[in-house]
């Protein structure tokens, strides 16, 4: 089985990446600083508790006195309250940072995604982008919000308890601390292994998700091919791998803590052995209370070390997510309005409509060449002049460049060489939105948004009234099927319009384009799944309602094309024939053959039919 896999990064800790990520956390910088201070304070308070216990033992219990104990209780209470306040604050602030960070990156990311060009979407699968915007972003928020906390607290606790131990008894303190490097090394070794096996698990997991995705989306096709058994076999193999990898990962992580604790117990035992001897030695160098405090520190110091190591490992892991997100955020759109254009006409998001000139609809290709990135040249030195109001039909084989031409007109791609003029001006001197707001674009594979049929038609013009919506639906002959639904126009079309047939979707998307009242109309195989009769009606509707608009039609069915003002035959990115239907028939070239072919058989059969009569 082959699956596409996410790129995997396996680099060491990359400080520059985190710097970049922190830049995106700018509004939270003060929160982060505050939270770091809080964590250090919290660690300080944590270190105080064993000291207070020591005092309780040495001062009050050993001396059998309760003098001043009230004050002790007050101090203890204050420490507890301060700690609780600390915990509440850092939970609150870190939560704010985590949620805010994710929110912010998603917001910026979505903006970026709305700007990126089609060439980007051509090579990036939607699933990857969704992963970047959801789980990857979440991970970054998590790491920045909580990772820092763990690090600060861990480091703070280790440093301060080490300091306290050394002050209490430096020899004993050193002995306890000497175990730390050993534990750190062991923890790092295991974390590395855990990280590695965890990555394996994630990889397998995304394969399983992919398999489910395919198993469910492709279920209908699978049924028609009777492939259920084979699919099941392949799936079982995947889950088997998953199980094996996950268990391996789990075993690695379940070994870590017992081993660290066992190592730590050596420090505790040593404290007990050497410290204990000091308690009853002649000069009573160590009190029982101090010894207890030491045992406490020795048992508590290992957890923060493991936690520091784990946080680093987590960060290394989040690094891949961070890198993916940063790459997405930093991708520059290939098509961008120039500064001057933005100044004059506004950006895509902040259009300055008052400066927009009227779009009349003259279109000119001036020696345009085009190639998709990494692909062959689709258009070579292509020139074409279209007058406003003309209907142009494009005919040619699949891959001849028809769709490329209309995509260039829509400025979804820009010419690699040459210029495209709209109303006599290079369209790069106008904003993208100016052009695209004047487009009616209907695709062969129509995409509807979830929501009602009404919502979907209204997408073409947001302020359209219900009457207008119904009017265009009637125009494209969609009303009949719409009214067959119980809820009529308020029928939910389902995820991606799934509840409608392809033909129905095409009609709705046609209505959506009509209501936009565009100056330029582009129909790319827009009615391929609609029956001929309905198509004829739509044709008439277009002819009447779109008089005076420039339109481009790509279609296989010649009846759709026939009435165009000009028919262009496109072969290998060049116009080989051009003219009206009549003219092209007279020319007896490619179009004539195409046309004649489509009817020759019927003619023969019709003749045969007549003969038998």
């Amino acid at each position: 089985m082959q699956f596409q896999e996410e790129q995997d990064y396996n680099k060491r800790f990359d400080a520059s990446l985190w710097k970049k990520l922190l830049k995106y956390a700018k509004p939270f910088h003060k929160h982060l600083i505050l939270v770091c201070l809080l964590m250090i304070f919290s660690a300080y308070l944590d270190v105080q508790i064993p000291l207070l216990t020591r005092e309780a033992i040495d001062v009050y219990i050993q001396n059998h006195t309760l003098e001043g104990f009230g004050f002790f209780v007050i101090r203890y209470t204050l420490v507890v309250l301060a700690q609780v306040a600390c915990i509440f604050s850092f939970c609150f602030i870190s939560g704010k940072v985590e949620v805010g960070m994710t929110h912010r990156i998603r917001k910026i990311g979505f903006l970026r995604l709305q700007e990126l060009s089609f060439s980007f979407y051509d090579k990036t699968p939607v699933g990857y982008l969704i992963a970047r915007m959801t789980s990857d972003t979440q991970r970054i928020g998590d790491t920045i919000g909580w990772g820092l906390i763990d690090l600060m607290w861990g480091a703070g606790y280790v440093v301060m308890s080490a300091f306290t131990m050394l002050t209490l008894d430096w020899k004993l303190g050193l002995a306890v601390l000497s175990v730390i490097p050993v534990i750190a090394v062991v923890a790092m070794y295991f974390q590395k292994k855990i990280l590695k096996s965890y990555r394996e698990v994630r990889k397998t997991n995304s394969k399983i998700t992919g398999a489910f995705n395919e198993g469910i989306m492709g279920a209908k096709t699978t049924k028609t091919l009777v492939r259920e058994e084979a699919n099941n076999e392949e799936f079982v193999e995947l889950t088997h791998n998953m199980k094996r990898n996950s268990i391996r990962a789990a075993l690695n992580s379940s070994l870590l803590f017992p081993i660290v604790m066992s190592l730590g117990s050596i420090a505790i035992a040593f404290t007990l052995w050497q410290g204990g001897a000091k308690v009853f030695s002649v000069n009573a160098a160590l009190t029982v209370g101090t010894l207890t405090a030491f045992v406490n520190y020795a048992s508590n110091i290992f957890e923060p070390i493991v936690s520091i190591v784990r946080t680093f490992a987590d960060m290394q892991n989040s690094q891949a997510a961070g890198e993916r997100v940063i790459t997405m955020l930093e991708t520059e759109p290939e098509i961008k309005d120039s500064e001057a254009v933005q100044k004059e006409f506004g950006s895509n998001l902040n259009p300055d409509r008052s400066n927009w000139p009227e779009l009349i609809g003259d279109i000119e290709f001036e020696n345009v060449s085009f190639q998709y990135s990494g692909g062959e040249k689709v258009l070579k030195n292509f020139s074409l002049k279209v007058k406003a109001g003309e209907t142009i039909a494009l005919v040619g084989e699949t891959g001849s460049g028809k769709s490329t031409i209309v995509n260039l007109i829509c400025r979804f791609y820009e010419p690699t060489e040459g210029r495209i003029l709209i109303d006599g001006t290079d369209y790069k001197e106008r904003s993208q939105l100016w052009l695209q707001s004047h487009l009616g674009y209907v695709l062969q594979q129509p995409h509807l948004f979830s929501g009602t049929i009404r919502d979907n038609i209204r997408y073409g013009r947001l302020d359209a009234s219900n009457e207008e919506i119904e009017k265009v639906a009637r125009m494209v002959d969609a009303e009949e099927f719409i009214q067959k639904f119980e809820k009529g126009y308020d029928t939910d079309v389902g995820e991606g319009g799934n509840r409608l047939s392809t033909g129905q979707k095409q009609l709705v998307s046609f209505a959506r384009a009509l209501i936009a009242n565009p100056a330029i109309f582009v129909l790319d195989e827009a009615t391929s799944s609609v029956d001929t009769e309905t198509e004829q009606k739509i044709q008439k509707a277009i002819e009447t309602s779109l008089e005076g608009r420039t339109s481009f039609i790509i279609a296989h069915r010649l009846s759709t094309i026939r009435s165009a003002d000009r028919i262009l035959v496109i072969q290998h990115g060049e116009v080989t024939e051009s003219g009206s239907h009549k003219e092209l028939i007279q020319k007896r070239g490619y179009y004539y053959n195409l046309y004649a072919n489509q009817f020759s058989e019927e003619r023969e059969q019709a003749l045969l039919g007549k003969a038998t009569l």
Partner: protein
Amino acid sequence: MASRKLKLLVDMMKGNRLRYFGAVAAVGVTSVVGFISPSVLGGIADALTSKAKGTNDPLNFPAFLNRFYYQRGGLDYVVSHLWIAALIIIALYVLNGCFQYFRSRWTATASEAIAKNMRDRLYTHLQSLPYDYHVKAKTGDLIQRCTSDVETIRRFLQTQVVEVFRAVLMLIVALTLMLQMNVKMTLVSMVLVPFLFVFAMWFFKWVRKSFQLSDEAEGKMSAVLQENLTGVRVVRAFGRQQFEIDKFNEANDDLWKKSRRLCNLLAIYWSGSDLLSMAQTGVTLVYGVFLAASANDILSIGDMTKFVTYISMLLWPIRQMGRILSDMGKSLVAFDRIDEILVAKSEEDDEDAVCAPIEGDIVFDHVGFEYERMNPVLIDIDFTVKAGQTVAVLGATGTGKSTLMHLLQRLYDVEDGRGEIRIGGVNIKKIRKSHLRSRIGLILQEPFLYSRTVRNNIGIAVKNPTDEMIFDAARTACAHDFIQDFENGYDTLVGERGVTLSGGQKQRVAIARTLLKQNDILIFDDSLSAVDTETDKAIREALKEQKKEGGTCATTFIISHRLTTLAEADVIIVLQNGRVAQNGSHDELIHEDGLYRRIYMIQTALEEELNQTEKTA
């Protein structure tokens, strides 16, 4: 219903029950061992105090150690052989570690095995569910159930199930030990524990709604995102970026608000329960000091430190209880959601279903069909197709053409009493579905391509196809040339849902894939719609060629809007409003008043025009 679910759960746990018993036992050992080390430490503290003061108090170790030390000389032996106690501490920690490892090992193996079980079952079941289920299914929701719901349960099974036992066992052990030492002190040490427990339970029950709301908000945000990205071309074509951004921001802001609320609630919980825990430790310490410091030695130093340690050991699992119970609630919900998939009825064959050869005439005998009550899609469909004939089906959008074809492959079944479909005299409801479908090649209008190479996609329906077979099928489907034009040729990966191929290319790959297998009946469900007329013709020619060569002589159904395609068929069936309005050959139908003739007229009008333009030329 509840017993059914329980049975399912038990069923899924099959083969792993022993591991859970083992894990619970290991947890039991760790709780007991865990309590021994503080009592050894406390014993040492007492011994050292008594040695330093020269009071010679009785030893305060666990019973077995007391016996060990007394046999060898009591207090003096303890302090002169401190290394023994030190070694015992190490031994206890190592022992504890070992059992902790066993516990993790067993729960991990068991939970992974159960998760695998669940995934396999879900997948297999989904594959076996009827066509109709998948038509209506919400893909995203199903995937979520199969992935994250399974994960929720797995996590619960791996980390939490056993923790419930830990909390209970620890509580029992701690109470016994503490009560033996000092009853009053025990009561004081436990005074806040019930509150902590209740607080945890109450809190998680209370925030469940908040969890759910933020989950829902997240789902909504992803849905908006997904739609925007899949429809990005439409968004641009209408210049609706701002509209989409507003839509997304609304969802994102909503998620932000709900997650913030959840975070704040959790902040309250953690600090609140920390307050209770620290207060409890403090109360224990203060009361312990009070007792130990009072003149009559009610409590030794060692006992006091023991109490403090025991209590702090206990507090953590108790705080976790609230979380565990709430996660258990989540797991139960997840389990319900999974169960909902599993109870859906899978496709089944009649017991006496046969593998009859798919040959002979195909008879639709007064067939009626409806998806929803009172909304018939097909009414009294009655016609016969002779073996080997090519049948074209024509009709307006939504008149039931696809349904008719789906019935033939039994993607839907004709209800009893609504007529029947026979192939070679056998009612297809008596034929095994897998057999029937494997002999009928149906190419869907919007075919799904699997995310693997083009080669694998074409060869997917047969076992071990040779390259030659694949190339031949691709050639017949006019796909060979464009495939070879790809940089990686047949090894090109088909992207997410076949994104990298155009509609027409996808259709051709799907056709090749179906042609590769042996078909007694072939159905093109408008599957040439995205292919240009010439290619369409070339494909049909290639098929005819194949037929002539005597390779296959499949009865063929073609749904199409193209007159050329229709006219070529032996029989043309015109569907109107769910009924067969016309049925006959091209010659017959052009002389009948009806849809076919009208369409024909439209196109012949063109033809006449062609003649005229030629004349004027």
